[in-house]
Structure formats: C-alpha cells, structure tokens
C-alpha cells in the first residue's frame, strides 16, 4: 500500500470511523428529534456522505474478515482455502481503495454542467509542432464523439506546410469541461519529422488551454461576465469604398474587452455575424476561466491548501514516437502507447486517473494535518 493510500485511510478513519465527527453527528441526530437548523444541515451532510459511509463500512468489514481469515492460516486443514480467500479479500480491498473510494470523494462540482473550449497553440518546433497540433485536434474531436459530446472546430489557422498554427475547438456536453480541464498545459512531442533528412529526433511543443463554456444568456438578460459597452468590436481589414463597390468576402472580426484587455480574433466563417458570435463565445469562456481561477485562489488562500493547481506553462505530457510511449508527468506514468492515446481510449484513462488523484489529494488536504 502506498503512503498516500495509508494517509487516505487515516483521513477516512478520522472522519467516518466510530469516533469521527460524522459518527458524532449521527448520534446527535438520533438523540433529539427536533428539526433545528443544525440538525437539518447535519442530516443533509449525512445524506450526501451516505455512499462514502457505506463504502467505508464495507471496507472495515472486509478488513475484519481478512483478520479472521489470517487466523485460519495456522489451521492445517483450512490453510489452503484461507490463503485463497485472503488473496481474494486483499484484491477486493485494493479495488475499494484505488477505484471505488476516490470517486466517492469527489466534491460536487460547480462546473459539472459546463461545456469546454480547447485553445491549442503551436510552440517550439516550427512545422513539426503545427503538424502535431493537427493530430491533437483530431484526437480531441474523436474522444469528444466517443464520450457523447459534440465537437465543433471554431477556428483552424492552417500553416503553409499543411499543419495547423493554432485552433479553437468547442466541445459541447455535460462534464466536458470538468474532464478536459486536465488537458491544460504544455504537450511535448518527440519524433523524427517526415521532412528531416538526417533522421534527427525533434522535440516540439503544443500549448493547450481548456476554458469553461457556458450557454449564452438569452438576449434580454444582461450578461454577468461583461458589459457590452466595455467591448470594442473591430473589423479586421480595410474595404475601400465598401458596399456595392466591393464583393470580396471580408468577415474577420476582432473584439476586445477593455477592462481586462482580452482580445479575440475570428475569421473562420464567411459570415461576419457568425464570426462575431463565436468571438463573443470565446470571450465569455476566457472571462469565466478568469473568474474560476480567482475564486479558487481565494478559497485556497482561506484554507491554506497545499494542493497545487496546474500551471499552464507546465509540461504535462510527453508523446514519444520512437519509443511508442506517452507519459503523463503528473501521474508519472509512461504506460500508454502512442496509439492508445492518439487513436484509442488512453486519453480518457489518463483523465480519470488525474481526476481520481486530485480528489484523493484534496480530501487528504482537507482532513489530515501535515
């Protein structure tokens, strides 16, 4: 058992065990039948924690069974049976600890119903970087479809060499943001580019930022994230006399949110109307992202939490082509193949593990003193 899991068990024991706070609440609840405010809150908390309590009870019961089984190992007649039984129980305990309990620790997310915008920008490595960006874009589109979300490429700025310099992908669907936010950070690719005659291994990067996307408020409701008067809307290229004199398609727009300086350019659609709508969508997502980061920072400062949040300039993953290995540096694992991640279900496995790790870390952070 890892040190972390030991600490998790300790945390669970103090909160859910017989002498824990939760058990005390339970007793208080049984003692009095009055529905005072504190009791209602306690009842609510109890209900919310019921699945975790059940899992813990199951765990402690299984552990007791294991102790009884150990006692039988000394018995000549029973040893073989007890050994098999013990192995079975240990496997069950491990499963509970690694897979079941972490998912129950997940706090209800305020962002659970949000869709996501993934902004990809090519970094070091020139054309190889933009080629890999195109592959990542395909990966996210494929994963989104497999998860039942709807992906739409909002911007796709192709480079002259057939790659993509930068792109914005909208992924609509419940839970898309909560899952994909783990993709924010620098993705590093190592391979020999098709154009590299000398066969030298190149290292290139693509930066991903995943933003929360909420539905547009209805047109008669004021947007909570910005005032329309604070947004400057510009068309990008001159049109001379314009109107009937010109029939060239000029649909590119740039909008700038003056208070924050956030600026979004859109030119993907032939319709200026559509480009403007999309630019506002991206602006909303960036402002919402800012708000979430600020809220988190405040909460963390209040709690003096030790759980780090991802720094977006941090290298999160390495895709190594010649070694056919993809490593997520936050998990410290390199057990996925190139195809697992880019063509298979490897990405979602990474994401679920990252979620689970984060949930456990937060829980320990909350309940275990350093």
């Amino acid at each position, binding site marked *: 058992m890892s040190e972390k899991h030991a600490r998790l068990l300790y945390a669970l024991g103090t909160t859910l065990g017989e002498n824990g706070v939760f058990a005390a609440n339970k007793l208080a609840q049984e003692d009095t039948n009055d529905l005072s405010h504190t009791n209602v809150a306690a009842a609510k908390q109890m209900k919310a924690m019921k699945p975790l309590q059940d899992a813990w009870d199951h765990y402690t019961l299984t552990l007791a069974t294991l102790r009884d089984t150990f006692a039988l190992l000394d018995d000549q007649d029973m040893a073989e049976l007890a050994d098999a039984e013990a192995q079975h129980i240990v496997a069950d305990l491990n499963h509970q600890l690694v897979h079941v309990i972490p998912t129950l620790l997940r706090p209800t997310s305020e962002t659970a119903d949000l869709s996501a915008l993934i902004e990809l920008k090519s970094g070091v490595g020139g054309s190889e970087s933009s080629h890999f960006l195109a592959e990542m874009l395909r990966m996210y589109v494929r994963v989104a479809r497999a998860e039942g979300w709807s992906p739409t490429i909002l911007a*796709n*700025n*192709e480079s*002259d060499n*057939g790659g993509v310099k930068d792109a914005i992908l909208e992924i609509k669907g419940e839970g898309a943001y909560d899952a994909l936010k783990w993709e924010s950070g620098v993705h590093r690719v190592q391979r020999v580019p098709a154009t590299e005659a000398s066969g030298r291994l190149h290292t290139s990067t693509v930066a991903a930022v995943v933003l929360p996307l909420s539905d547009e408020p209805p047109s008669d409701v004021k947007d909570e994230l910005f005032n329309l008067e604070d947004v400057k*809307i510009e*068309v990008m*290229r*001159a*049109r001379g*006399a*314009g*109107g*009937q*004199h*010109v*029939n*060239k*398609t*000029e*649909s*590119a*727009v740039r909008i700038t949110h003056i208070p924050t300086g956030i600026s979004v350019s859109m*030119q*993907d*659609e*032939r*319709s*200026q*109307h*559509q480009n403007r709508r999309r630019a506002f969508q991206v602006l909303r997502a960036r402002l919402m992202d800012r708000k979430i980061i600020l809220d988190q920072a405040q909460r963390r400062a209040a709690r003096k939490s030790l759980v780090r949040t991802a720094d977006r300039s941090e290298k999160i993953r390495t895709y190594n082509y010649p070694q056919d290995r993809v490593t997520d540096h936050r998990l410290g694992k390199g057990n996925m193949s190139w195809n697992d991640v880019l063509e298979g279900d490897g990405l979602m496995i990474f994401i679920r593990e990252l979620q689970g790790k984060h949930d456990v870390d937060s829980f320990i952070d909350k309940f275990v003193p350093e």
Partner: protein
Amino acid sequence: MRLLRALQQAIGAPSAHNELRWMKRAIAASPATVPDLDTMVARRVAGEPLQYILGAQPFGPLMLQVRPPVLIPRPETEDWALRLASAFPPPPGVTGMRVQRALDLCTGSACIPLLLCAQRPPGTLHAVAVDSSDAALALARDNARACAVPCATDARRHTPPTNTLALLRADVLDTAALAAALRPHGPFDLLTANPPYITRAEYAELPPSVRDWEDPAALLGDLPAAPPSGGLAFYHAIAALLARGDVLRAGGWLALEVGAGQARAVAAVVGAALAGASETQIWCDPWGKERVVVAHGARR
C-alpha cells in the same frame, strides 16, 4: 499547395487561406452541388466572385443562394439589416395583433426582407419585395423557399402564424406604375432599399469581380442617356414615391443604403420628400463608412 499558391497570387495571402478553406468546406458539406476544388480555384483565379462559385452566401442567420448576375449580399447590408430588425419598433397598441408591412425596393436576392422575416416574431410581418429583373425575382423566390418564408399576400392566413413575402416586378424609376402596383399592399410601416448607387465614373474603376460579374442594373446609380446624378437617380425616384404620401404609413420608418460619401445628399433628398420627417439618422457600417440613411416619418 499548388492551389494555395495560385490563389495567393490572385487574391493575396490572408484571403487565400480562408477562401481555400471555405471551398474545401463546401465540398465536404455537399459534394454534389459544387464543382471540384481545381475547378473552383481556376474560376476564382479567373476573377469570378467566390460567392458565385459556391452558390451561396451567409446573411445573418440565413444561408442565401446567389447566382450571376444578381447582386451578392454585402456584409455592410447584413450589418444594418440586423440592426434595423431589432431597432424597428413593434406596432403601437395591443402588441403583435397587427401584421406590419415592409417594402423592399431593388430587392435582388431578397436578402433584406428575408432577414427581416427571420428576425421578427412569426406572424407579425408581411414583406413586399420589388425588382425589375426576372433573374433577381427568380432567385428571390428560391431564397424564400430555402428560408421557409411563404410567398403570399396575407400573413394571417397561415397557421401556425408565419411571416410572408410577396414578390412584385416593377421599375422603381417609373413612379406612377410602381405606386399603382403597390396600392393593394400598402401603406407600409417600413421601406428599405439598397438601390444601385455607383456613379458612372466609379463604375469604370470597379474591381473586375464586381464589374465583370454583377448586373450593372444593380450597381449603376447614374442613368444611361442622362446627365450624371452623383449616383443618386434611384434616391430621387424613391423620394418621388414617398412624396405621393400614400406609401409610408404615418410614423413609418425608411432605411436606405448609400455609397461612400452619399449619405448627406440622400438624407437631404428624402428629408424634403418626407415633409415633417421627425428624425433623420445616418448609421455607419462596421468599417466606419456612413452607410445607411434612416428616417422616421412624421406621426399625423
């Protein structure tokens, strides 16, 4: 790669990337209705407008069909028509019970009345679109069908309620005949037009994709065999129609697109015709050019 380079030489690098993408996207969306990529690029390099090659042009939330030589809807027009659709007030009194009437002169693809039909609440607008060109009227009919706007004369006949469009063939320059043709449909709450406004001198200087492909009758605001009018011939004709007094309802709105530098002159022409117009405004387009003259008729 080769196609991109050819396009870059013809229309410049930033546009080449976008246009190539739009061509590819059109092929992916409906391979049967558009030419193959080589053909498209060759036609574009030869100067044909992208919109005619793709056969369609977005206009606000609508996707309109376009085909030569009918004028291609411009982004300036899209901008003011959207703005007008939300600024134009509903009928006074009990809300929504009276169907408002809109008249669009020199309608071309019918982009303006169809956008109004799409943006106003269903069952509240009956639009009448006028053009002198059979090609334009045929395209307008196709577009009405594509936008699911019934071509009829009375919006109230439809269940569920829907906005409707009537098409009229008439010459805006023949004021008496036009007024007679409009009488059964009027009076109107709103008159819009994007009439031809290019002067004869400017016409010679137009980019080939405009001059060689779009109908001169939709562009030239100076009449043949007449002294140059600064491209204002159609505004004078519209003013004459307004001066008859029975076309625009009291308090009705007027919105006319104008060419660069014409706004003040057009405001003066229609201001004189709408004697006692309560207010005349000039709206700018997204590029900062004075683009639309908007007048509210006096309430009697």
